[in-house]
């Protein structure tokens, strides 16, 4: 498959500039409807993210790693995945989970640790997973999901299932040996995997200069014999286009691709972080006010005549409603029953667990 993009570029691949003007020679292959859907998903994602944040402030959620600022890369990358494809999330992939098909109700139930969360509240918030959608409930261990993503992709090849594994990671995750060892496996086995690296320029307080000495993250792929692309991660069209190319390539036997999405997180690392200790307010404001992915896409759609004030207002209203409804569902969902604490450690309870269960609950 001939690449419409150049790998290993020094400046990011972009379709639209910050003012919503087209900048690419190539025209997007997406339909107007697709573009509107991309936009809507970003707005919805931001709304759910905001909701989660409120729940943290209310003390109803113990933790949250916000997505705000990174919607374009997450949504663009997941946009053309098929249902059978696999997604490996980390601790921040609200947008990817939403795009792959998790509902606002499920996503908010997850934040509350409720039964409606497909993972039944087993994990701390921001760790989205859904077995129906092949979204793998993540561990919190940075970088260590990459090997399993490659394994899933290898199995797809062996089983000729036509599946692709999309594996999310942050810039920090590239320093973990497991990530790099998995890249090497992906190269050797020509695995149908896409590594979606959101370079939000920080790993908690560590900026990219202290994370690696390579000029870009994308170029790390060359050490393992496959291509890497640097993409403007706040340009949802560019994100979706390059991702679609990589997904199609993987699906048709072309092997793995690393995509670096250059982006930024607005919030602190998580609700437990105090980012004033390591970055300037001005830097945040710069990104939020002039490079926001949603704002950029709104300008673009408007300039293209695909959006006006009325349709925008209508969509905002609809999204507000969807989120409220999701929240209602999440709140209505019960906490899992105490006895379920023993479930799923193994396929069946083992004898020593039965002893423990009797000890604690008085019955097996």
């Amino acid at each position, binding site marked *: 498959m001939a690449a419409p993009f150049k790998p290993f570029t020094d400046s990011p691949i972009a379709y639209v500039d910050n003012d919503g003007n087209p900048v690419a020679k190539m025209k997007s292959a997406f339909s107007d409807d697709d573009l509107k859907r991309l936009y809507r998903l970003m707005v919805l994602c931001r709304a759910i993210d905001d909701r989660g944040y409120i729940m943290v402030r209310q003390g109803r959620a113990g933790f949250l790693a916000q997505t705000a600022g990174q919607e374009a890369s997450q949504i663009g990358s997941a946009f053309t995945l098929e249902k059978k494809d696999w997604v490996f999330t980390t601790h921040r992939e609200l947008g990817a989970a939403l795009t792959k098909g998790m509902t606002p109700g499920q996503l908010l139930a997850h934040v509350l640790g409720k039964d409606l969360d497909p993972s039944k509240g087993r994990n701390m918030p921001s760790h989205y997973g859904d077995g129906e959608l092949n979204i793998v*409930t993540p*561990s919190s261990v940075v970088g260590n999901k990459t*090997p399993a993503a*490659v394994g*899933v992709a290898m199995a797809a090849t062996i089983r000729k299932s036509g599946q692709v594994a999309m594996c999310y990671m942050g810039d920090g995750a590239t320093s973990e040996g*497991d990530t790099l*060892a998995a890249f090497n496996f992906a190269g050797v086995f020509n695995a149908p995997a896409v590594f979606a690296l959101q370079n939000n320029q920080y790993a908690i307080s560590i900026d990219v200069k202290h994370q690696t000495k390579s000029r870009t993250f994308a170029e790390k792929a060359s050490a393992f014999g496959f291509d890497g692309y640097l993409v403007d991660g706040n340009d949802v069209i560019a994100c979706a286009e390059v991702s679609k190319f990589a997904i199609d390539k993987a699906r048709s036997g072309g092997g793995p691709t690393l995509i670096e999405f250059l982006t930024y997180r607005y919030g602190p690392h998580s609700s437990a972080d105090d980012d004033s200790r390591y970055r300037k307010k001005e830097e945040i404001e710069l990104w939020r006010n002039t490079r926001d992915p949603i704002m950029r896409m709104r300008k673009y759609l408007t300039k293209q005549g695909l959006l006006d004030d009325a349709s925008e207002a209508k969509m905002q209203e609809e999204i507000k409603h969807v989120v409220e409804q999701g929240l209602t569902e999440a709140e209505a969902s019960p906490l899992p029953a105490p006895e379920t604490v023993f479930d799923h450690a193994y396929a069946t309870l083992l004898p020593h667990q039965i002893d423990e269960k009797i000890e604690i609950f008085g019955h097996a």
Partner: protein
Amino acid sequence: MAIETATKTLTMVQAVREAMLEEMRLDDTVCILGEDVGPRGGVFLCTEGLYAEFGPDRVIDTPLSEAGILGGALGMAMNGLRPIAEIQFIDFLFPGYDQLYSEIAKIRYRSAGMFKAPMVIRGPYGGGVRGGVYHSQSPEELFAHIPGLKVVVPSNPYDAKGLLISAIRDEDPVVFLEPKRIYRGVKNEVPEGAYTVPIGKAKVVREGSDATLISYGAMLHVALEAADRLAAEGKNVEVIDLRSLVPYDGETILTSVKKTGHAVVVVEAPKLGSFANEISAYIAEKAIEYLEGPIIRVASIDTSVPYNLEKYYLPDADRIVKATKKTLEF
């Protein structure tokens, strides 16, 4: 359990190989991955000939990364295969330990059962082969203490084949540890075709009434040697082969200890923090009133494994005899 058919005399290496071969013939989702498992047939030849029969999609030579092997196997297991991850020496699992600890063992639990990891992690372990520190260790406790994993250790070819087939068919990840010291030395009659030995059932390999020796793997044979020596002195010792550490067969242990009133637990790992403790603590919790002497652990000393002084490191029949007498004469 065992389908009584034709048998042949096999070593443990051959039994392990047969288990994989049979299961791969029966179930085409079963595959093997690891270092040198392909044309080389594994450094101990456990996969000899399998590459020729099943090809590179099912007998997969990997790059040199245990995290890649274990994590890769996990992904394959999640996506419909039943991988057997061979670790060349269990000592070398540790660069991939996080994959076991954080991912393989926990995927089912953290996803509330949506994802699972039916896979086997197998490889040679233990000392007695002049392998130095890194080809001799017995880290079973470091697996047994991870909820979500099962841990199995065969002591003979018959069990090895039957237990490995059970492990391959298990819905949960099973760490299958093969005592390399008896890879070729201990042989027995092994049925042809597939049969299972259930995971979680111990075996009383020698009956006796004076004391109970509990062991597994290569140490079982040292315990049996000690039992012989004790028998020569008129002490009638029962020997239990645990076979499976997680889950372990508490009932068989208790039945025996209640009968004999004395327990000695023999493991090859360094003593402090070893799996012997689990068995000892279990007995001390459940059957203390039956005991007529201390529960004694016989284990390796609390150092790394030395290349040239290994015989002072490993438990031997002497130490077991001494320990048994100590509790008997209490």
